[in-house]
């Protein structure tokens, strides 16, 4: 510990002081540049101009809706795409972790496809599923699906072999091994995957809405851009960041709750 004072644990108070100072420094610098006059206000609006615009957007519809309505529409699409990704990705990942043939058949394809950024799917998503619900859902799906699948797969592959052997000697078939052994053993890995999946899905959603859809935060930002309203664009960016943090905090809570429940504190895990 003494050799690396940088590694010493921070007290709660130190942590908050430093976090808040970081934020304060960021907004201070932003305000200073905006006020200095080196950039025109349109190029970099001041933080309070953005806040003012956000308040306005909560009462005055822009691009058809208020900012809350845009957010609700985005979150709805997001939940559909994310839900679909999870409900296909987890079972498929577990099955691939158990059936070697399925693994061999799907993995090479998936390895290549997952490098295609969700936004690259926009033309086909719009062509195949339209710009209403289907298209954006597909784009979120392409973002959220790989981590959901890969983490379920890894979880299933790294289950302690003796637990699988125990299940086999107790007469369990494929189905029971997947549902009663691989799935519960993979829960920590799956939940970690959900956090990544949720984050990537949320990022892809905004990308999708920049191009397709007729409501949502991304759409609001596109309209802000074409109206040369930089404060509107920044309001959208802030809303995205805040919702992203909320999603991550919720999933992190879920994760730590599952971990404490499974392992118990200070337990002697065989």
């Amino acid at each position, binding site marked *: 510990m003494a050799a690396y004072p940088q590694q010493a644990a921070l007290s709660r108070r130190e942590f908050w002081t430093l976090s808040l100072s970081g934020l304060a420094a960021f907004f201070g610098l932003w305000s200073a540049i905006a006020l200095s006059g080196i950039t025109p206000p349109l190029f970099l609006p001041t933080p309070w101009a953005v806040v003012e615009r956000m308040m306005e957007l909560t009462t005055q519809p822009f691009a058809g809706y208020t900012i809350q309505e845009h957010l609700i529409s985005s979150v709805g699409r997001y939940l559909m795409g994310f839900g679909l990704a999870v409900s296909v990705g987890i079972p498929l990942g577990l099955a691939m972790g158990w059936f070697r043939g399925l693994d061999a058949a799907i993995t090479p394809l998936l390895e290549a496809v997952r490098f295609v950024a969700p936004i690259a799917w926009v033309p086909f998503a719009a062509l195949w599923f339209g710009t209403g619900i289907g298209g954006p859902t597909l784009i979120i799906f392409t973002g959220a699906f790989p981590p959901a699948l890969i983490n379920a797969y890894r979880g299933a592959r790294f289950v302690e072999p003796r637990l699988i*052997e125990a299940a*086999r000697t*107790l*007469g369990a078939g494929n189905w029971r091994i997947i549902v*009663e052994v691989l799935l519960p053993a993979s829960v920590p890995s799956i939940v970690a995957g959900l956090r990544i999946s949720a984050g990537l899905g949320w990022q892809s959603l905004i990308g999708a809405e920049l191009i397709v859809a007729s409501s949502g935060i991304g759409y609001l930002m596109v309209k802000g851009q074409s109206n040369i309203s930089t404060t509107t664009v920044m309001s959208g960016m802030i809303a995205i960041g805040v919702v992203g943090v909320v999603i991550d905090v919720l999933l992190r809570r879920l994760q730590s709750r599952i971990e404490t429940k499974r392992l118990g504190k200070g337990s002697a895990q*065989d």
Partner: protein
Amino acid sequence: MSKIEFRKLSRRFERDGKSFPALEDIDLEVQEEEFVAIVGPSGCGKTTCLRLAAGLEFPSSGTVSVGGQEVRGPGPDRAVVFQQFALFPWKSVWQNIEFGLKSKGLGAEERSSRIAKQIEMMGLQGYETAFPHQLSGGMQQRVAIARAYVLDPVVLLMDEPFGALDAQTRTVMQEELVRLARVNPRTVLFITHAVEEAVYLADRVVVMTRRPGRIREIIDVKSVRAKEGWDRFEKIEEVMDQESFVHLRTSIWKLLREEQV
């Protein structure tokens, strides 16, 4: 009819394109309700013998049969007790014991009554809803033994079941197993590296050579036990004090020592 039969069995392992013999020429029959212990130097393939009977591995040549059927894969007719217990950490004691019964397609009532009986037999009352991590090593191994016994298997395969326990718990569990064998005799194949344990528990002790594992000698403990009346003792230390016990233990030790050059 013998319950477990290894016939002309050998097993080779492939590594880096080379083939290594692990077991050679194993011929062994375990009779109905007989308790056979296999001892041998580490790496002699004794655990492989058990895994072959369990159907977790397959012989390179020769056959293993259990209850007259050639072994083709794992199944609940051959319950296994593992050294590291291998309990499902996310299942309660009750659910762990229930796991194999579900594979047998028994109804809920039949399952409950069997589990309750087994829990009582293993002294696990009051722990039904506990999870494995809340139990001591000895208690965990009781659950693992209950999970195997409850299936009413044709044979019980035990792979160094007490190897991970401390010395005192180990003694208690050995006595427990002897008690269980008196109440409810089973056909048991028991793997261990502890000579004393083998002599105390088994009817016959199989001594293996070092790699590749062959059967060096089979020692009949049962006849000595019957002649000297070990069964009248309740405690392991009373048996261990018998001259005949010491004699058997020492002669097995010598055999093993010769293998450990």
